[in-house]
């Protein structure tokens, strides 16, 4: 080989060897240091309940799949569960838990009545009942009135929240299209539900819009401007639902949507079910003696999100509000933002007893967090109190907020696989 070529090869080889060799050495030794340990293979444990034994075994089991089925629009199941939960509350009260929440007598009877009317009425009777129950008008978030003398036969949900509610309470033929992204979230919206509506809003064209002729579209302030324009040009009314940031706002939106699509009874029943479900989970927190911790003994629970860095939700978010409802003190108490970024050093200094991370890629993220050298001395990691929950429902303002609350409880007090 000529000398020049040898020199050139030497230069490039030296550089390549330096880079490759450095990486091999650095990441090889890192792999050895962080080799999977018993810590990452073992399941997370439930929070130890103190100071008195849990009363959970005395009340009915609560399963996510059942809750999910009910929230998807199974009104009979909703009624059955509400009845069970009322019994649970009475049991807890009989054990001396005065703070156990029961559905009010009035609402209980209302649930039973609505369920019977929905199940035992013929379509014509149902139609007449809906006309009776339906409000005369509703207002959207821009304070525009929508008269409901004649109900809207076909609607177009432009937001995930409105589509989620409609899939639960409306007839499929009333929904012209749904956001395509919902079809991919099969863990929230099974195919059996989303397949009832064939069209996606993203593939909508003005001509298809014209042919399907929705009378009203549910939009928000973040809806695509050109879509809004196209809808207006077609003469389609726009119902703005901009703020769904709290449980009350979710219920309020539910009721308004239900009235718009002439499903007031279903909407009311669903709101009552949501309230009852949230109450029953509150009771389960009480039953597990979570609230029995005094201030000093209360475990430090830190909820986190992880994108390219960690952050903790504030009370502006639904997740933060759920934490507060459960009696868990938020780290970001007085923050005007939606989330507060935290770096590893801050998390180490907080030294939570329990870490809950809401993430989409839970299987990948859990070992990544457990094996992070920065976290090895955090109490939560040492005591296997790292819990992963579904991020999609945590930030989803719809009836599935119940599942978000359930996931929170489940992470703390039940084994994740149960």
């Amino acid at each position, binding site marked *: 080989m000529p000398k020049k070529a040898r020199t050139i090869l030497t230069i490039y080889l030296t550089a390549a060897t330096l*880079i490759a060799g450095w990486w091999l050495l650095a990441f090889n030794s890192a792999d050895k240091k962080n080799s999977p340990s018993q810590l990452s293979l073992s399941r997370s444990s439930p929070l130890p309940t103190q100071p008195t034994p849990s009363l959970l075994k005395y009340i009915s089991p609560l399963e996510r799949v059942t809750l999910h089925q009910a929230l998807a629009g199974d009104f009979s199941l909703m009624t059955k569960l509400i009845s069970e939960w009322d019994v649970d509350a009475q049991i807890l009260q009989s054990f001396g838990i005065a703070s156990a929440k029961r559905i009010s007598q009035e609402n209980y009877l209302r649930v039973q009545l609505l369920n019977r009317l929905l199940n035992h009425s013929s379509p014509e009777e149902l139609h007449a009942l809906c006309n009776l129950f339906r409000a005369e008008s509703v207002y959207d978030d821009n304070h525009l009135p929508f008269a409901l003398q004649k109900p809207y036969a076909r609607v177009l949900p432009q937001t995930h929240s409105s589509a989620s509610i409609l899939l639960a309470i409306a007839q499929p033929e009333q929904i012209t299209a749904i956001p395509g992204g919902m079809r991919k979230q099969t863990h929230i919206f099974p195919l059996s539900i989303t397949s009832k509506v064939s069209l996606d809003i993203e593939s909508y064209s003005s001509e298809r819009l014209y042919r399907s002729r929705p009378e009203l579209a549910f939009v928000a302030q973040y809806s695509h401007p050109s879509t809004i324009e196209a809808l207006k040009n077609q003469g389609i009314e726009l119902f703005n639902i901009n703020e769904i940031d709290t449980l009350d706002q979710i219920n309020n939106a539910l009721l308004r949507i239900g009235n718009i699509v002439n499903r007031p009874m279903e909407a009311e029943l669903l709101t009552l079910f949501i309230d009852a479900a949230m109450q029953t989970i509150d009771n389960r927190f009480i039953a597990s003696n979570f609230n029995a911790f005094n201030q000093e003994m209360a475990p430090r629970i830190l909820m986190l999100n992880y994108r390219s860095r960690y952050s903790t939700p504030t009370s502006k978010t639904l997740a933060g509000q759920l934490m507060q409802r459960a009696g868990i003190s938020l780290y970001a108490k007085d923050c005007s933002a939606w989330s507060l970024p935290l770096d590893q*050093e801050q998390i180490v200094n907080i030294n939570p007893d329990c870490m809950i991370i809401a993430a989409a890629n839970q299987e990948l993220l859990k070992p990544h967090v457990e094996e992070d*050298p920065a976290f090895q001395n955090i109490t939560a990691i040492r005591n296997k109190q790292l819990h992963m929950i579904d991020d999609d429902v945590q930030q989803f303002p719809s009836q599935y907020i119940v599942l978000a609350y359930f996931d929170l409880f489940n992470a703390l007090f039940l084994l994740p696989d149960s």
Partner: protein
Amino acid sequence: MKKYFVYLFTILLAVVPLTLVMGDTPWDIVWKGAMDRLFGNSQQWNPLLDERLPRLIVILCSGASLGVSGAVMQSLFHNPLASPSVLGVSCGGSLFVVVTIIFGWHLHYPYSIPIAAFSGCLLTLLLIYMLTRYSGEVNLYNLILTGVALSTLLVAVQGAIMYALRDRWQLIQTITEWVSGSTVDRSWKHVHMQLPLTLVGLFGCWNYRHEINILALGEEEANSLGVDVLKVRWRLFLCVSLLTAGTIAAVGFISFFGLVLPHILRKICGPDNRKLIPLCMLSGGIALAVMDFTLRFFELNSFSLGNISAIIGGIFFLILLPQVQRKAVQSC
């Protein structure tokens, strides 16, 4: 010239301890933990040794890389407004890293990101050269046209991928945060990702500082003065790619920095790359460290390092633009 280095070293001596001291944990605890680690038996994670120090190294490397890359590209392209991304190499690195994040490989294999950045940058450079050679002579004009065309395509592909995945909002958030550039939670892993690339890249640029001066005169003149233009230019582009790959791997995207900093320094110390390159190395690191310190000190959580760099860079750019325009008119 020496006085600039003195000033810069003084600033560096001020910034380094400030960066290492500032943090959530009280200094006495941090210091004690560090001493126990270094001289005792403790294996416990220490903020100073395991986060602040590697973060400082990464910031200094990134600043130096961006500054030197910008200086080199501006000299090679005879344009004081060229930047490290003018050839589109950074777009290739970015695309590969985005794909890595989408598939979650960065959680499986920690070195997947530097390899992705490195591969993306180098493959893009090779592709630019191949396409330029295919379409004609490998000169600056053709290189820059090919680079612009290819970077447009790569950015479009990345945009298409992001659009297709727009429903996976967590992923979009992750990618958005990464693209904005961040020095949060850097560790020795990031130092190892970046440092070998930075050392090779900076050494290469430093080694060719004389040639860069001569190349700044023009290809024909450089040729006639004895510089093997094709060989040296290729090696310098390779070095810039390595520096870009290292920065992308360690901190993400920091735009405008590599354009504005060398431009300002050139006004201070002149275009001689024998002075400019070491000055860019030092001041790039310091400037980025100061920006990072400012973000942390004022707890500006709404901004990333890339945002601040782009904003400040843009402001400087607007201030400098009239002077550049005046100079262009005068030289006409």
